[in-house]
């Protein structure tokens, strides 16, 4: 009885793509305390072809960033021990991690503070998977010095 809606707008970015050029091997570190957001984020990012690792606080996230060298860190501002903005500043300061893309994804309208902290992009919650996935793709493409193969919506 459940079915996908008929997508009459062709401009919509498909969630699953065979575009290995961008998504192949891309590892995303999600820093998030809310289990509902974490589950859905993991589901949609996996579905889009990305590998996902988790941290639930900023200090653990920084350690993981140094250890596993993710392509992107997606972090909430409101995480314990080291908040998302401070995490971003440290990632961007450390030569070992400074090339890692940081996306601030928060319930706070913190776009200005995110930019000040050196974040590459900001998205406001709640989670809307098309927006999230297209932003991630665009950031990866930019990092790879390539134009996005599908224009993000």
């Amino acid at each position: 009885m459940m079915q996908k809606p008929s997508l009459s707008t062709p401009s919509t970015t498909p969630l699953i793509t065979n575009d290995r050029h961008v998504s192949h091997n891309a590892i995303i570190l999600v820093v998030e305390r809310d289990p509902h957001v974490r589950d859905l984020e993991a589901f949609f990012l996996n579905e889009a072809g990305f590998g996902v690792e988790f941290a639930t606080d900023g200090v653990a996230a920084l350690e993981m960033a140094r250890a596993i060298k993710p392509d992107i860190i997606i972090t909430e501002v409101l995480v314990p021990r080291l908040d998302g903005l401070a995490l971003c500043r440290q990632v961007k300061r450390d030569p070992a991690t400074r090339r890692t893309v940081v996306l601030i994804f928060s319930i706070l309208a913190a776009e200005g503070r995110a930019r000040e902290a050196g974040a590459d992009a900001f998205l406001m919650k709640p989670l809307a998977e098309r927006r999230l996935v297209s932003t991630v793709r665009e950031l990866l493409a930019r990092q790879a010095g390539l134009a996005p193969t599908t224009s993000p919506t």
Partner: protein
Amino acid sequence: MTTSVVPDPSLFPRISTGNEQADEVLCGGFPANSINIIMGQPGTGKTIFAEQLLFENASADRPILYVTTLSEPLSKVVSYVQRFSFFDADKLGTEIQYEDLGAELARDGPAALVPHLRETIQTISPKIIVIDSFRAIHDLSDSVPEMRRMISNLAGLLSSYDVTAFLLGEYTTADIQRYPEFAVSDAIIELARQPLGTRDERFLRVIKLRGSGYREGQHAFRITGNGIDLFPRLVAPRVAPDYQVRLDRSSTGVPGLDEMLEGGIWSGTTTLLVGPTGSGKTTIALRFALEGISRGEPTLYVNFQENPAQLARAMSNFGTDVEHATSSGLELLYVSPVELQIDSFVVELFQRIKTGSLRRVVIDAVGDLAAAASDVPRLHDYLYSLVQHFAVCGVTSLLTFESGLSSTGGDMHEQRFSYMSDNVIQIALGGEERTRRTIRIIKTRNSGHDPVVRELVIGATGARVS
């Protein structure tokens, strides 16, 4: 709080109800990405309210999910909605998907709801989820902790994702304190039905709307083939910056009465004409209306007693051709007192004043409004607000009111109506046969008047003061 926070509207989008007036009550609609409760006893219009909202918001990008639980059989919900003009069969199954979760919930208990919704989010990405009835899920569990856990979990899931939820239920006011879903909700809308004589009046009330202003109080509505037809409760107008008191006087059209009023009544004011039955109120009111027409002032005559034919006869007695009068700007509005619903009437009147070029309005008689009102203080609020709108729009109005035969002025409505009117004129019947009419001006705001009781003569051709 002294500072007002104006949030960036693009950060906090709204979901339209599909009804312009309801959106107005909600100051723009429901906040998107919220959890909302639509509560009300069976038959109050919850499902229609929700369906109208769904069809308004349906689009090809992401579907809407309507989940029925234990009280509403799916087939009934779907077949009933087809009767409304907003129904669009092409959207069914694609843009709006219905699902019956009754059996699953009955088998696995309330805890089955959240995993099911999570899976739904992952498979179809719904932008709106309706659960009808949510209250019925409580009947599946005796365990308060179990329901609390489920609702907390549900709130967590729904608020993490870009989805707006509507929980429908046959809740009573007492349930608001009892059930945890009210604590996690962002908005609570109550639909109610109250008997009034042989009819029912329906009301919508906003109990809670987080992060937004809203119009308080009960707003009357009807259910029509187009869905909900709502009449927001009137509030006194904010005075328009260009509001100017009119400095001219309006003739009453009654020879001798203008002289008593030092040249007529101030234009833009409200006059209450009080008198017992048969004292000539309608005659004077008609004269006032026709005088307006003869001066090129568009005039609305509202009447609850005489039907248009009776009124036409009364007018032709004055030598007035009704057709000529109506083509010259006289508008007759007859509302049967049996059909009269105060809210819709006042809103209609208000809209005519706001949009039209009306200069005079007669309401014959305001007491009929009082008789039809289920809530008297509210009627007084309405009339007060209406009178304020008259003043702001520069409309000169005459309200008639039938007093008791003794005309002692002790009537509660009479006192209230006198208080809100600028001018009060009283007619009395005297003499042995009670055929001798006298007229007296009781008050005129910002004007002198003749305080003497004078004789009023009502003849076949009209009225005059001698």
